[in-house]
């Protein structure tokens, strides 16, 4: 059984990757945060009795299910929001956070010049955009196989497909990303 410290350590190591994966799928930061939050709660309330080495696979599966559930709920929600969209006043909300304007001075960023930093941020934005453009199954296979470091069998089980499909998706995704990045002038 995983201890609370092991749970927290695992979630701390996985939360940002989980957030990015959710953003690639749903394309909205707030929804992605909600999905990750729900996945974390599900893991800790339903699977806290599992050993620590099982947590990565469990969390991956829970996160994928949460993303799929989000899309199912969106279909129903969109029906009602379309009907009531004329009643919504978009000017009322102000989500700006003054703390976001404050730059962090700590860490390796301090050593970068401003131009390098901007270039780096642009490259990372391009990577994010290209990953988002991938077909859903290719993106899932690539992220699970290479980013979450699952093996082929585990990735196939998480995606509900064959191992051959996983290899095909991974190969196509990698080739597509390499070609897209090369076309944007990014050398790997």
């Amino acid at each position, binding site marked *: 059984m995983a201890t609370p410290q092991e749970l927290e350590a695992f979630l701390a190591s996985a939360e940002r990757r989980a957030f990015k994966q959710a953003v690639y799928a749903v394309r909205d930061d707030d929804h992605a945060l909600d999905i990750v*939050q729900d996945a974390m709660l599900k893991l*800790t309330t339903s699977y806290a009795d599992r050993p620590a080495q099982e947590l990565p696979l469990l969390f991956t599966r829970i996160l994928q*299910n949460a993303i799929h559930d989000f899309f199912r709920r969106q279909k129903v929600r969109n029906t009602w929001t379309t009907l009531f969209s004329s009643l919504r006043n978009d000017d009322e909300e102000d989500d700006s956070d003054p703390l976001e304007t404050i730059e962090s001075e700590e860490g390796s960023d301090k050593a970068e010049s401003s131009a390098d930093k901007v270039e780096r941020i642009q490259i990372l934005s391009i990577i994010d955009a290209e990953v988002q453009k991938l077909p859903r199954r290719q993106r899932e296979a690539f992220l699970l196989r290479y980013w979450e470091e699952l093996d082929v069998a*585990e990735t196939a089980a998480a995606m509900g497909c064959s191992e051959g499909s996983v290899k095909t998706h991974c190969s196509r995704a990698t080739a597509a990303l*390499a070609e897209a990045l090369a076309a944007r002038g990014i050398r*790997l």
Partner: protein
Amino acid sequence: MNEKQTASAIVDLLNEGAERVSYKVQHRLERARRNAVNAAGRASPAQQRVAVPGEMTVLADGTAGWSSGSREPADSWAMAVARWLIPMTLLIVGLWGIGKVQLDEESDVLATENLLLLVDELPPAAYADHGFGVFMNNTRIAAEELAGANR
């Protein structure tokens, strides 16, 4: 570069991007993590999951595997039925209510017409005459305009 090397280079960039999330996102993730860990402490043993066929199991060699591709039974069948049953019930009750109201209104109109036929001095055949209906309508409109002008 072969596939693994290319993927590795891309993953390095993805990791770097993940480290550069905004302060707001970092804060929310940290708060979500704390809430989740606290919830683990509050969850009673009865609420925690027991092994269900079709879930991940740890194999003899220590690796983890999935016994089937089925999903965890997160939502019970009762929730799935309620998700469809409640809206359908409300729809049916609503349609029945609308039909009843319309029927009552039609009955009231018919009853009023029947009463007028019975108490009026004109023969019923007069009401079937189209020209007579137009005359009555024009008379009613003229009376309403006169009443409005006198106010």
